[in-house]
């Protein structure tokens, strides 16, 4: 158990709004080992981004607040770390890249300025050395003319280049954990392939652990070792990539995988899950997926199932495992949608 770098234990992050309390993250637990790539998958509103922002303590407060649970980074609980301590950790030990490369760089400073600032904040080196380091990092992420680009402004670069700069910045201090929140969603597929390739190299060469937040199961299957599937603020399934994609256990994961159009398969009609994602709420007692689930029975509406541990690190939140019956084969329910 020694090589776990990041562990979430029963994390609860709630938002306090005019319309009541919203449990955006509702008891999430999982871990990330050294050198591992773990994917967090879910649709909009599933709480995957709030989970990652909670780790970095970047939840705007108010309205958001971590109300329970622990975030253990190498044994240290970040959930109650001071802001001063967090500033030491962010960037240096855990760094993050965001979805929008357009908005996460400051438009009024040059690329070099922003990189040098980050490096010098954490390490006592001269400006000149920091600049050398910045140029070196830009070269590492495959930016052409790095010694010129370092003096350019973000608007002079394309989306893919900006995301490379963000990766250069987040890697410049050799963090142990990289949290990537939808890093390629805003990019075209050919550029996405470049960025994923880059992240894979960092993981393999530097041994950086990556927590990859995404909604794209294709990206997950290509990048990750293990996957955590989230739905409405909770983890509904966890397992290795192969297990999740080839042999999903939870009805939601099953439906999700069946509703993907596949580039290499011929199918007549897509499966679709009826209805839409439920908004998290503190009042709801049943299984969050029950209203859309075709296997739902009475118990599902009155009680939320626990995460059943099916195997080592293989979990699924569904009463069907309790009944010890196999989750049955899908009947075609397309007529219903």
């Amino acid at each position: 158990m020694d090589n776990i770098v990041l562990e979430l234990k029963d994390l609860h992050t709630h938002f306090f709004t005019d319309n009541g309390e919203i449990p955006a993250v509702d008891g999430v637990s999982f871990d990330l080992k050294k050198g591992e790539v773990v994917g967090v998958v879910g649709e909009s509103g599933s709480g995957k981004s709030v989970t990652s922002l909670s780790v970095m303590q970047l939840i705007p407060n108010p309205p958001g607040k971590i109300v329970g649970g622990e975030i253990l980074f190498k044994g240290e609980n970040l959930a109650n770390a001071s802001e001063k301590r967090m500033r030491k950790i962010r960037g240096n030990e855990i760094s993050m890249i965001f979805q929008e490369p357009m908005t996460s760089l400051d438009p009024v400073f040059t690329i070099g300025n922003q990189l040098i600032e980050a490096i010098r904040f954490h390490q006592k080196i001269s400006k000149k050395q920091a600049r050398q380091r910045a140029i070196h990092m830009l070269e590492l992420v495959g930016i052409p003319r790095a010694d010129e680009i370092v003096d350019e402004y973000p608007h002079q670069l394309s989306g893919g280049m900006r995301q490379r700069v963000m990766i250069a910045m987040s890697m410049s201090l050799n963090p142990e954990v990289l949290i990537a929140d939808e890093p390629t969603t805003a990019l075209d597929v050919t550029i996405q392939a470049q960025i994923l390739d880059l992240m894979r190299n960092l993981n393999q060469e530097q041994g950086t652990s990556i927590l990859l937040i995404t909604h794209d199961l294709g990206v997950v299957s290509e990048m990750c070792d293990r996957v955590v599937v989230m739905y409405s603020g909770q983890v509904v399934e966890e397992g290795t990539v192969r297990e999740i994609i080839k042999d999903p256990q939870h009805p939601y994961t099953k439906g999700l995988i069946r509703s993907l159009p596949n580039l290499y398969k011929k199918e007549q009609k897509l499966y679709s899950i009826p209805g839409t994602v439920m908004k998290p709420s503190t009042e709801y007692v049943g299984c969050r997926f029950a209203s859309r689930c075709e296997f739902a029975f009475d118990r599902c509406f009155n009680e939320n199932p626990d995460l059943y541990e099916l195997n080592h690190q293989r979990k699924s939140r569904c009463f069907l495992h309790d009944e010890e019956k196999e989750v049955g084969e899908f009947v075609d329910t397309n007529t219903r949608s």
Partner: protein
Amino acid sequence: MSTPILEVKGLKKYFDIRGGVFGKKVGDVKAVDDVSFTVNRGEILGLVGESGCGKSTTGKALLRLVEPTDGEVIFEDENILDLSKEQMRRLRKDMQIVFQDPYASLNPRHTVEKIISEPLITHGVESSKEQKERVKELLEVVGLEADHASRYPHQFSGGQRQRIGIARALANNPKLIVCDEPVSALDVSVQSQILNLMEELRDKYHLTYIFIAHDLSVVKHISDRVGVMYLGGLVELTTKDQLYESPKHPYTQALLSAVPVADPDYEVDRVILEGDVPSPSNPPSGCPFHTRCPMAMDVCKEVKPEFREIEDQHFVACHLYE
């Protein structure tokens, strides 16, 4: 699969770049540059490409929502670029569009009933009883309920809004619908609902779609034939099976190999393209793809390859096949 409903010949759309103190024209962005294709009655033609390749502009130019610079768009034996504004307005009854962003394409101050009945009023359904009936019917057709008519767009989810957008497009029984990224703002589980709905409607009302999207697997799923665009021009156009099984153009090959597949056992020979898409205001000489093409030859730098049929129903613009 024989009679074309729409024929596009040499369609061009240039946007002026103005600069200097007097706003003089200093150049142009060739958003769509010499695009030709036909759409058969009852088929779904997919148009794919990355951002900035001109696929959306092509879609809008077909309906003259942006005025094309040059070319011909022949809809049922009539060149619609010659029509007057009023004639065009009447013709739009037969040609409709569904937009990408279901949050921005519905007026937030109008009820669903008003949104859907507006095209009815424009095209001559005057009695309000008839309008109400038709709205009710349309809502049911797209999988919503009749009493949703009195609600406002903000009361619906993304998928439901897209259904409203589709109902509005269907209001006057159109023949052709241009779908501009209709599912790209939606979550996977909702996306498949909308794709299935669109297929059902096609069969039920004998519609023809031009389906514009950047997601190759979505386009593959829904289309009969697919055209691939790069930097304002079509580079390849053929049947779905041909395109996905044996892509000819190096760009199509790279694009297909770049799509991550949700299958851990699947090994791809990935062609990783270097660099970014060049700017359409200053496109490269010769073949627009030669700057990134792994197979570029000398001729590619100088001569723009012709978009021609190399096999039955398989059009490619590449010097490798000449």
